[in-house]
C-alpha cells in the first residue's frame, strides 16, 4: 500500500490517534478558565492519556506500561518539593504538536502551538513543568514562549533538592537510565544529562549503571514521533533492551513516555517467551521510580484506580 | 677459407637511410613517451570534489568554471586574427593631409582599407572587416571573460592556500589584458587613439615618484611625452604584437599548468 501522500514510504501508523489529535487542533474555541491568581508553576502532562488509550486495547499495560502513573507521580513529586502546580490538562490544552511537526504536518502543529500559547499566556504561568522529553524540546525550541520558562521535571526536582527517604530494605538495585534524544542530544541549550542521574543517585540503595551508549551518544529507543513502528524499529528497541539485559539491571528508567511505550511493548512481547529469555528488569518512567520511594500515599491512589484484570493469555502462551 | 655471405643491397640501403634519419631525429622515444602518457596518465582528468561526491548544490557555478577557458579561446582567436591583420596594417602615425585638407595618417588609412571603408585609398581588403571585427569582439570577450573569471575565483575562494601564486599570476594577466586592449585601440590612429594617448601620457608623466620617473615611463611606453610626434603608434605596435603576447603566453602556460597541478579550486 504505497501511500499517495507519503510516497513509497508507508503511511504514518496510529491512524486513530493522529486523526483525533488533528481534529482536536481544529477546535480553536478558547475556554473560560477561572484563575484566582496567576500560577507560578504549571504542569503539562502531555498525551499520556491518549497513549494509554492507544495501548489499552491490547492489554499491554497489565502493570507493565502505565502512562497515567506519570501524571500522579509527577504531581506527587512536585508536592514533595513544595510546588503546587496548575494542571494544564487536556480539557483546554492541546497536544504540544511534536509528533505533528516531525511528521511534516506543520499546519496542524502551528494551530496547536498558537492555541497552547494563547492558553499559557491567559493563565499567566511563569514556569511550565513537563514530564516528557518531547514536550520539553517542543516547548523550549519550537514554541516562541517569551517570558515563560520551560523545565523538565527532573530539572525542577534537581533544583528544589528532592530528598528521597531511605528505603526500608537495603537491597541494592542496579538502575540504568535511557537518555531521550529530544531532551539530550537535540537541545542546543541546557540538555538534560546530569539531573536524572543525580536524582537516581539520591536513592540510597540504587547503583546507577550506564548503558553501552549514554549521554550524547545514547542510542534511540527505536521509534520517534510515534511513526514507522515495524520490524526494523523493533530491532533497534531490542538492541537497546539487550544492552540493559547484559548489564543485569533491575530498573531501566527513561524520561520520555514514548521510550516507555516502546520499551514496554518490547517488554510485554518478550514476556511471552519462555522464562530464560525474558527480561528481568522493570521499565519505568523516572518520575514513577522516584515517586515509589517517596513517603506518603502510594502513587496513583484514588480516584485514579482502574480495575486490573489478569492477562488472559498468560496461561495460553506462557513459557515452557 | 672465408666465404663472404651475399649481402642484400636493399636491406643495406634501408638500414642506411633510416639509420641516418634516426640518428638525426630520434622520434621513437618521444612517440613512445607521448603514447604512454596518453594511455596511462592523461586519459582521465582528475575529478574535482564536486564530481567525486556528486554534490548537487553548486551546479549553477559550473558555467562559471569555463570562463578561464573562454578567455583563453578568445585569446587564441585574437592571436590568429591579429596575425592576419598584421599583414595589412601600417604602423605609421605621421600626419599628412588629404586633398580635402583633413589631417590623416597611414595607420588610419590602412585600418580603413582593412575595414573596407568607401573612402579608403587603394583597394579594400576582402573580408577584412570580418577579421577586424573578430579581433575587436574577441578582445572584448576576452576582457569580460577574464574579469568574470576573477570574480568567480574571488567569490568561490579559489585563491586560498595553496593557490596564492596562481592568483598573483592571474592578477598580472588581468592587467596585461587591459594593456592589450589599451594598446590595441591606440593603434588605429583615430581621434579616440589621440585622446587616449594624451591621457595615457599625462598619467604616465604624473606617476608618483621622482620627477624623472614620469618622463622615463612616458618615453619608455609612448616613446615621447608629446602626442603630436606620433611615435607612440610604432611603440604601441611593438608592445601590442610582441612584448605583451610573449609575456602573456608564457604566463598563461604557467597559469594553466598550475591549475592542472593543483587541481580545480572548488568550495566544499
Amino acid at each position, binding site marked *: *500500500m504505497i501511500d499517495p501522500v507519503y510516497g513509497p514510504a508507508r503511511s504514518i*501508523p496510529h491512524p486513530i*490517534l493522529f*486523526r*483525533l489529535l488533528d*481534529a482536536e487542533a*481544529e*477546535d480553536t*474555541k478558547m*475556554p473560560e*478558565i477561572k484563575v484566582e491568581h496567576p*500560577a507560578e508553576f504549571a504542569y503539562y502532562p502531555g498525551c499520556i492519556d*491518549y497513549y*494509554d488509550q492507544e*495501548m489499552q*486495547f*491490547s*492489554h499491554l499495560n497489565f*502493570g507493565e506500561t502505565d502512562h497515567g*502513573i506519570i*501524571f*500522579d507521580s509527577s504531581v506527587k513529586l512536585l508536592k514533595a518539593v513544595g510546588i503546587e502546580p*496548575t*494542571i494544564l*490538562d*487536556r*480539557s483546554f490544552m492541546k497536544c504540544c504538536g511534536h509528533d505533528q511537526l516531525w511528521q511534516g504536518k506543520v499546519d496542524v502543529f502551528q494551530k496547536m502551538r498558537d492555541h497552547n500559547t494563547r492558553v499559557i499566556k491567559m493563565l499567566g504561568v511563569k514556569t511550565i513543568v513537563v514530564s516528557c522529553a518531547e514536550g520539553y524540546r517542543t516547548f523550549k525550541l519550537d514554541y516562541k514562549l517569551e517570558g515563560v520558562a520551560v523545565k523538565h521535571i527532573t530539572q525542577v526536582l534537581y533544583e528544589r533538592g528532592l530528598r528521597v527517604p531511605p528505603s526500608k*530494605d537495603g*537491597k541494592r538495585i542496579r538502575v540504568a537510565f535511557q537518555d531521550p534524544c529530544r531532551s539530550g542530544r537535540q537541545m542546543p541549550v541546557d540538555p538534560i544529562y546530569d539531573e536524572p542521574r543525580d536524582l537516581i543517585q539520591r536513592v540510597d540503595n540504587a547503583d546507577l549503571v550506564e548503558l553501552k551508549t549514554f549521554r550524547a551518544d545514547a542510542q534511540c529507543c527505536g521509534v520517534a514521533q510515534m511513526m514507522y*513502528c*515495524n*520490524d526494523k524499529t523493533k*530491532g533497534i528497541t531490542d538492541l537497546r533492551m539487550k544492552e540493559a539485559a547484559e548489564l*543485569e539491571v533491575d530498573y531501566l528508567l527513561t524520561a520520555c513516555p514514548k521510550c516507555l511505550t516502546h520499551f514496554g*511493548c518490547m517488554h510485554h*512481547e518478550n514476556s511471552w517467551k519462555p522464562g*530464560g529469555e525474558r527480561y*528481568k528488569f*522493570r521499565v519505568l518512567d523516572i518520575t514513577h521510580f522516584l515517586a*515509589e*520511594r517517596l*513517603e506518603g*500515599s*502510594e*502513587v*496513583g*491512589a*484514588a*480516584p*485514579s*484506580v*482502574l*480495575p*486490573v484484570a*489478569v492477562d*488472559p*493469555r*498468560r*496461561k495460553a502462551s506462557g*513459557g515452557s | 677459407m672465408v666465404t663472404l655471405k651475399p649481402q642484400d643491397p636493399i636491406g643495406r640501403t634501408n638500414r642506411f637511410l633510416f639509420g641516418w634519419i634516426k640518428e638525426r631525429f630520434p622520434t621513437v622515444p618521444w612517440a613512445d613517451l607521448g603514447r604512454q602518457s596518453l594511455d596511462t596518465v592523461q586519459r582521465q582528468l582528475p575529478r574535482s570534489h564536486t564530481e567525486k561526491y556528486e554534490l548537487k548544490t553548486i551546479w549553477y557555478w559550473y558555467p562559471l568554471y569555463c570562463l578561464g577557458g573562454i578567455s583563453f579561446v578568445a585569446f587564441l582567436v585574437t592571436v590568429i586574427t591579429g596575425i592576419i591583420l598584421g599583414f595589412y596594417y601600417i604602423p605609421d602615425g605621421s600626419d599628412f593631409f588629404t586633398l580635402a585638407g583633413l589631417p590623416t595618417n597611414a595607420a588610419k588609412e590602412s585600418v580603413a582599407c582593412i575595414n573596407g571603408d568607401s573612402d579608403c585609398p587603394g583597394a579594400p581588403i576582402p573580408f577584412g572587416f570580418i577579421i577586424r571585427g573578430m579581433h575587436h569582439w574577441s578582445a572584448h570577450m576576452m576582457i569580460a571573460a577574464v574579469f568574470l573569471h576573477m570574480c568567480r575565483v574571488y567569490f568561490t575562494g579559489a585563491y586560498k592556500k595553496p593557490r596564492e601564486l596562481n592568483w598573483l599570476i592571474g592578477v598580472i594577466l588581468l592587467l596585461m589584458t587591459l594593456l592589450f586592449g589599451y594598446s590595441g585601440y591606440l593603434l588605429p590612429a583615430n581621434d579616440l587613439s589621440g585622446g587616449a594617448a594624451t591621457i595615457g601620457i599625462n598619467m604616465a608623466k604624473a606617476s608618483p615618484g621622482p620627477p624623472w620617473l614620469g618622463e622615463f615611463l612616458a618615453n619608455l611606453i609612448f616613446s615621447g611625452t608629446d602626442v603630436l610626434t606620433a611615435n607612440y603608434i610604432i611603440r604601441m605596435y611593438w608592445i601590442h604584437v610582441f612584448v605583451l603576447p610573449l609575456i602573456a603566453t608564457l604566463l598563461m602556460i604557467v597559469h594553466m599548468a598550475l591549475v592542472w597541478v593543483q587541481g580545480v579550486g572548488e568550495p566544499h
Partner: protein
Amino acid sequence: MAAAAASPVSAPPTVAVTLDYWQQARLKSLELAKASYKSFFRLRAQEFIRGKGALAVVTDNVCMGCTHCFDNCAFESIDMVERKFSLPEYSYTSRKAVIIEENCVGCEKCAIACPVDAITMIPQEGYEVKDGRLTQVAGAQVPDMPPFLQPPKPGAPRPPVEASRFEPRTDADRVTHRISAAFKPKAAPVPVAKPAEVSPPTAATGTPPAPAPPPAVKPAEPSPPKSAATSPPPKAETPPPPPPPPAVKPAEPSPPKPTAPLPPTEEELPQPPEEKKSPKKKAKEEK
C-alpha cells in the same frame, strides 16, 4: 486455578472520595480521551467491507505485533507468531499476527483495532465488491443459510450509518482551575473500596482470586482511570496500604502494591517475585 486465571477479574470500584483538583483534571482528561477514541473508532468502522464473504489479511511487514487484533477477535481466528529476523550484526525475533482463515467470519474488528493499518478486509473468492457493497459473484453457489445471513442482494438498501465525528468540547467538560496553594480539601475523604483480588497478600501467597464477572460485563466508559495497582509486579514483601487521598496520608513506607498476574507459577510469570531480587542468582540456578 487456571480457569480463574483465564477469567479477567475486574470490579468497577465506586469512587466516593472528594477529589483533589489535579485528580479531577486527571479524570477529566481520561474521560475526554476515551470519548474521543470511541467516536473515532465509530468513524473508522466505515472504512472496511465486512460480513460473510469478507476476509482479513495482514500486511506482514507493517504489522508490529501489538496484539490489538488478537485481543479483539471474538472468534479466535488470529494467532501471534514469532518471526525471526537475521541481520549482519545480530538477529532477533518479532511478533506477527496471522489470520486463521477458516475461523475468520469477516467482522472488521481486527481491521478497526489495528493501529498501523496492517489489516485490510478483502472479499473471499465467490464474492466481490460492487459500488461499495460486498455481493456474491453472479453464478456462484449460494449456500443455503437463514436469510439474515444471506449476502445482500445488489440494490438492497443499506442501513444508514450515523455520521459520527469529533464532538467539540463544551465548557461543562472543563475543570474549574484553582490554584492549589489556596486549595484546602473540604471533607475527610473516604477510602476507595478496592476489589479483594487486588489486595497484595493474594498476589504474594498466590491464592486464587475471588470469581470475577466475565469480560463482557466490563465497566462501560467513563470508568475511573487506572492506578498504581497497574504498576509492574514489584518486590512481594510489602504490606497492603489502604489508599486514602494523598493530602492527609501518613508516611507510607513502601512502594505501591500492584496485583501480580495470576497464577503465580515461576514459568508463567514474567518476573516471579522471588526471583526478582537477584537476577544473577536465578541465572546460577538455571545452570
